[in-house]
């Protein structure tokens, strides 16, 4: 069996099994909470990377998660819809916001787009803060009901929550996987690399950019809805710009060359790392910054490119060893030098 086949038929099922068995392996509510967070933020980071694949860099993705979260909270408490209807509805609402805002914002390129998404996320957050009568304002949105029992599974432990968010993650992974391996992925990437050339063969740039953006927002909305009913409490402080920035860190630290595994690996690494070091929240921000800088500097392909990167280092060291004057690693550990 080739390495590729080995990865496909042995590696992937093992990985899937690991994800399915994770809450039993880490049978402790706190660890399970971390697992749930990993899946939630993976969905956001996957969305970030999907938008990046059409060449647009967003730092406002948490804003769409907030829309999904508050939409779902309103639907269940004020309208009285069951969670199982509110979740897809919230996703659709976030997707509609995504399509409309995408239609407006995606005309801007690079830096301008980045600022627009930032502003949008802030507008969403400030709307929540300054509309206390409906959205709870700074004090938060309390008493969001837990999901109703489904298939005889009551939501009284972490297990059903984990499998629900894992299911959402799996759906998103499937969608991205299929799109990535079809005409759509090819078109997205061609737009990112050379818009005029893509246009010259008939690609409607805006249509495909909006498609990628809307899909990402749909899943961000679904994740938001889940998040609301998991915590049963929402605060605008959950959806600050920091959250969006950390989401893009997940994707970049995991490796933007890895459309699916990268964001998930990055989210897992960055959620677990502060716990391993028993860091407080303030300290974990510093930690994230340090890790981010180190990864960008030394492993620009992301954590998942570490095997290739090690090869590059070894080559550099071998070349260096023949030159008198010894090894100065800081000169040679950077790729491309």
């Amino acid at each position, binding site marked *: 069996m080739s390495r590729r086949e080995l990865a496909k038929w042995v590696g992937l099922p093992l990985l899937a099994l690991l994800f399915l068995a994770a809450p039993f392996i880490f049978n402790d509510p706190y660890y399970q909470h971390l697992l749930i967070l990993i899946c939630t933020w993976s969905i956001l980071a996957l969305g970030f990377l999907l938008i990046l694949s059409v060449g647009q860099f967003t730092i406002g993705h948490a804003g769409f998660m907030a829309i999904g979260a508050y939409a779902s909270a309103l639907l269940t408490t004020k309208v009285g819809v069951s969670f199982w209807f509110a979740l897809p509805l919230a996703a659709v609402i976030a997707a509609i916001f995504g399509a409309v805002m995408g239609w407006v914002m995606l005309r801007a390129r690079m830096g301008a787009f980045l600022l627009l998404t930032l502003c949008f996320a802030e507008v969403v957050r400030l709307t929540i803060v300054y509309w206390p009568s409906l959205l709870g304002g700074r004090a938060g949105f309390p008493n969001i009901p837990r999901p109703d029992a489904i298939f005889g599974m009551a939501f009284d432990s972490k297990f059903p929550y984990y499998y629900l968010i894992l299911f959402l993650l799996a759906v998103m992974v499937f*969608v991205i996987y299929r799109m990535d391996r079809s005409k759509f992925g090819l078109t997205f990437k061609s737009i990112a690399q*050379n818009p005029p050339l893509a246009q*010259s063969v*008939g690609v409607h740039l805006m249509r495909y950019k909006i498609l990628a953006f809307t899909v990402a927002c749909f899943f961000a909305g679904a994740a938001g809805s889940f998040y609301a009913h998991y915590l049963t409490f929402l605060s605008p402080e959950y959806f600050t710009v920091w959250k969006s920035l950390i989401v893009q860190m997940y994707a970049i630290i995991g490796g933007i060359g890895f459309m699916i595994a990268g964001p998930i690996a990055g989210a897992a690494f960055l959620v677990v790392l502060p716990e391993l070091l028993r860091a407080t929240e303030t300290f974990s921000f510093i930690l994230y910054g340090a890790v981010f800088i180190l990864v960008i500097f030394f492993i620009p392909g992301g954590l998942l490119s570490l095997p290739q990167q090690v090869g590059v280092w070894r080559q550099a060291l071998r070349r260096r060893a023949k030159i008198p004057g010894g090894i100065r690693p800081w000169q040679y550990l950077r790729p491309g030098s």
Partner: protein
Amino acid sequence: MAILETRQLSKHFGGLAAVSELDMEVREGEILSVIGPNGAGKTTLFNVVTGYMPPTAGKVFFGGEDITGLSPNRIAERGLVRTFQETVLFARFPVIAHILTGLFMDSTTTLWETLLNTPWWFQSFRRKRAESLQKAAEILEFLGLKGSELMLATNLPHGHQRLLGVGIALAANPKLLLMDEPVTGMNVEEANFAMSLMRGIRERGITVVLVEHDMRTVMDISDRIVVLNYGRKIAEGTPSEIRANQEVIDAYLGVEEDVA
């Protein structure tokens, strides 16, 4: 019959008239060259015709329809496809992916097919993909790029990169192909191959318009030539007529010995 026609087409950049009141027509099935000194407005003409820049005044007709002011992708959909002057490719794509991107309009795969079609369901997703790969292979064979399908385009020799640019445009199934300096930077051998390709493209029923500086290529291959200077058409005719035209010699060709 005129497949492409410009009427009183003008493009001004501030006070500079890059293209000025240009009346020009391209006949179906011919190879037409647009020549002129640097800054004569040739590339601007291409950009305006293919929708990359809006004209200041005037109209463009393609196949009898007014296409003035349409976006580049809409114009490409109608069968008017261009190549670019600089070697512009997709830096992170292998060769085959370029052609598959070019086949974009050809592929009718919908989002739902993409998401739902698994091998044991109905087969249309896989069948369409196989058809696209087949077409891409034919185009690469035609361009003589067979065997380098999986190479990164940036690793190809320059001449091959230019050919790949033509391949992307060909994949988009053009009726009229606008080529902006296709043989620039090619050696004699590559340029000869490129010329035979252009004839091959014409034989496939595709009308060809090229902007070119290489006089040997232009005189050799063109059915007709349009000469621009300062955005105006100063001459039009067969290669031998152009060679004999005093105004063209003054503006562009210089003494006749240089041409021959």
